[in-house]
């Protein structure tokens, strides 16, 4: 369609997009949260897995989309997160073209903030600047003369202190009134880029200015919108004009910083307050060569103890609630297939999802606090040298710790590891960390295998749980060490990380993280779990009719006047026979020979099959398996049911110590999460690594579980 026929966009369009951009740790997220509250959504950028955080907010009569871009120091990307920033700002991402840019700058780190700001100015996008963290700048004796800064940059400026909510109204007013201005380019790129080359590129790709032409050259290697011919054309043009992009970029960086210094000389006053910063004093404690590690270990222990103890109460309530809900609905509705589906399939299925919320919320709250206070980057600093011999780096610690909550955000968090080998190893081993989906499996099995007694102030079960997490860490280190020896990459490993000021956590941000993560879990993982629960119920309730009749016929029917015990015994034998002859029983029996050496029976076999979708399905599978055919009214909770389960042939407990531990170890190591595999596939751009990962993790799980069972039995 010719350009002329498309209608002009009205000047007073009612919806527009504002991109929020800034260095890491400048309070960008706090501003985003204050502007949007719980309206924020998480989506994906096309083709990559970087989380796209955005929200539609109403400002007067207009609607604005606020797009929270990943934190970056420069629009020249050093990591995948930063590639997104580059693409959005350059309008290369068709779905996410910002109308305006709001750049957040830390007032106590103006130089680095303006480095990014001036790069955006050169792109020619209408923008405004938020000078944030007034308080910490004041503490350090830094004063910014806003007017002088405005005069030299020509960009509207607003001051704020997002943590104390100061300036937030001003920011939303600025957005509402669209007080953004299109600045003059800050740097004269013409000095760096030969004019003939620039004009040729602008003409060929319909670009607006020299800077965009320069950008295209810089990114042509990994720009998916260019085809091979265009790429070759660009390279030929560069060669023929003798253009050395690497040197030009260094020159650009130096020019830019020089220009910024001139601006800052006029606009910033610094007084040396002569006192040691609180952060430096705290660092001498948190980074102490012994104390630092002791504190880190202590923090981890507190987290696990809290997750274990605090989530137990709400989890018991949720468990009890769904058990009694099932039995009251069973009483209310007429007996039949539909009632059974609801009380034995759907309700336990929903219960199996909801029960995770306390743990997920708590873990994300703790991770949020560690990140928000600035402590996480100290962990990177403390751990880097220790992780290096294993082929990991200090930045691997954050993904690995996130892996305690869930491997998926953990693997996605590896994107800020700039180095591919370090990143690949981190991706490969993160699923070995004990994620929260394993936690319910651990909790139930530890509850069976470990007595509830105390050693000093510590619960023996809590210590066993900590042991499981440590086992995960040992597996991570061992595997990455092996991978480091096997993988052969030439790329050099590096670490460059800013250590921000310590701050008190901002509870609103922590609460929003808790809320949005739990919501994502319920709606994403929940669907899979609920579906599988219902499918399982069907598979467990029906079977080939001949096998079923045969199994039932073999059981001796007691006479009507037989004592209650005999009647009960008959009922449970009947239930067991029905389950054994159901479709799922047949599947479980099929794999039983393979898992018998690990101490598992066919019911556990069923749970292993269904757990491949997601580990947490173990609990709902077990719940469904053991409540199918039993009277719902006795309200036995899952754990009690498992403990009372005995082998029909021998009368021994099914879940004895050896089997319980063997199962715990199997769940610790096995790759049983389709969602993780999907994420690994996307992050490594192929099936090679997810397949390798599944094979080695399952092998590790099988061998370890076998060893544990053989030792304990």
């Amino acid at each position, binding site marked *: 369609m010719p350009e002329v026929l498309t209608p002009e966009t009205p000047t007073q369009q009612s919806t527009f997009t504002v991109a929020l951009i800034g260095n890491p740790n400048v309070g960008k997220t706090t501003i985003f949260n204050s502007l949007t509250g719980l309206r924020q959504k998480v989506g994906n950028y096309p083709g990559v897995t970087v989380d796209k955080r955005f929200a539609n907010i109403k400002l007067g009569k207009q609607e604005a989309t606020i797009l929270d871009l990943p934190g970056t120091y420069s629009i020249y990307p050093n990591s995948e997160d930063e590639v997104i920033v580059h693409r959005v700002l350059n309008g290369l991402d068709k779905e996410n073209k910002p109308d305006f840019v709001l750049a957040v700058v830390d007032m106590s780190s103006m130089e680095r903030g303006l480095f990014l700001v001036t790069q955006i100015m050169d792109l020619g996008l209408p923008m405004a600047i938020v000078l944030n963290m007034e308080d910490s700048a004041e503490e350090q004796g830094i004063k910014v003369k806003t007017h002088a800064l405005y005069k030299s940059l020509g960009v509207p400026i607003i001051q704020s202190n997002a943590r104390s909510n100061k300036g937030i109204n001003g920011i939303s007013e600025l957005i509402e009134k669209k007080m953004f201005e299109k600045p003059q380019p800050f740097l004269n790129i013409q000095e760096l880029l030969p004019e003939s080359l620039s004009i040729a590129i602008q003409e060929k790709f319909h670009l607006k200015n020299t800077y965009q032409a320069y950008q295209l050259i810089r990114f042509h290697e990994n720009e998916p919108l260019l085809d091979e011919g265009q790429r070759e054309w660009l390279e030929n043009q560069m060669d023929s004009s003798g253009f050395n992009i690497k040197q030009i970029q260094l020159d650009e960086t130096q020019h830019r910083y020089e220009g910024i210094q001139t601006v800052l000389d006029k606009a910033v006053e610094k007084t040396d307050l002569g006192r040691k910063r609180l952060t430096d004093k705290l660092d001498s404690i948190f980074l102490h060569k*012994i104390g630092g590690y002791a504190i880190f270990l202590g923090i981890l222990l507190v987290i696990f103890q809290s997750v274990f103890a605090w989530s137990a109460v709400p989890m018991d309530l949720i468990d009890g609630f769904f058990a009694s809900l099932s039995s009251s609905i069973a009483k209310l509705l007429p007996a039949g297939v539909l009632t059974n589906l609801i009380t034995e399939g759907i309700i336990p299925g929903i219960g199996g999802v909801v029960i995770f919320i306390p743990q997920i919320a708590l873990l994300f709250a703790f991770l949020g606090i560690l990140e928000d206070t600035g402590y996480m980057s100290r962990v990177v600093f403390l751990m880097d040298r220790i992780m290096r011999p294993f082929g990991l780096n200090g930045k691997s610690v954050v993904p690995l710790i996130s892996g305690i909550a869930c491997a998926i955000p953990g693997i996605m968090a590896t994107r800020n590891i700039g180095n591919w080998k370090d990143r690949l190893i981190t991706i490969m081993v993160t699923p070995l960390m004990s994620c929260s989906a394993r936690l319910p499996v651990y909790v139930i099995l530890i509850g069976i295998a470990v007595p509830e007694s105390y050693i000093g102030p510590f619960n023996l079960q809590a210590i066993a749980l900590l042991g499981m997490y440590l086992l995960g860490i040992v597996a991570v280190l061992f595997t990455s060490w092996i991978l480091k020896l096997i993988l052969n990459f030439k790329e050099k490993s590096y670490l460059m990380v800013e250590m921000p000021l310590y701050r008190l956590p901002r509870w609103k941000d922590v609460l929003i993280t808790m809320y949005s993560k739990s919501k994502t879990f319920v709606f994403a993982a929940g669907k899979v779990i609920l579906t599988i629960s219902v499918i399982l119920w069907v598979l467990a309730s029906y079977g080939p009719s001949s096998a079923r009749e045969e199994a039932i016929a073999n059981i001796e029917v007691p006479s009507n006047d037989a004592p209650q015990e005999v009647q009960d015994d008959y009922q449970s034998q009947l239930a067991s026979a029905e389950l054994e002859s159901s479709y799922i029983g047949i599947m479980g029996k099929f794999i039983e020979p393979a898992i018998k050496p690990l101490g598992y029976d066919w019911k556990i076999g069923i749970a292993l099959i269904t757990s491949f979708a997601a580990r947490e399905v173990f609990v709902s599978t077990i719940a469904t398996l053991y409540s199918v055919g039993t009277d719902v009214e006795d309200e036995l909770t899952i754990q009690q049911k498992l403990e009372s389960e005995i082998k029909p042939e021998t009368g021994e407990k099914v879940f004895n110590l050896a089997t319980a531990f063997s199962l715990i170890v199997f769940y610790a190591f096995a790759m049983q999460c389709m969602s993780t595999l999907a994420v690994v596939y996307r992050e490594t751009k192929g099936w090679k690594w997810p397949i390798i990962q599944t094979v080695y993790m399952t092998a590790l799980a099988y061998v370890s579980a076998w060893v544990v069972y053989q030792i304990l039995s």
Partner: protein
Amino acid sequence: MSTADKIEQGKMAVIESITPSELSLHLMEMGFLPGKRISLLQRAPLKDPLAFKLENTVIALRKSEANLINVKLEN
């Protein structure tokens, strides 16, 4: 001429140049530019990485990266 990994804890130095490498641009973007004063704030317990104070911010670098920053030590 010395390099940034040789700065003693608590001492200052002025950056003279950055040794050309894959990391030069990244280092310069973070603000490690000729003429800037840096000080060594902290060594990690195992002597590596190193935390440098640059302007008002603290940046952690590995020894091998600090080695790319050529400095003039101040007394």
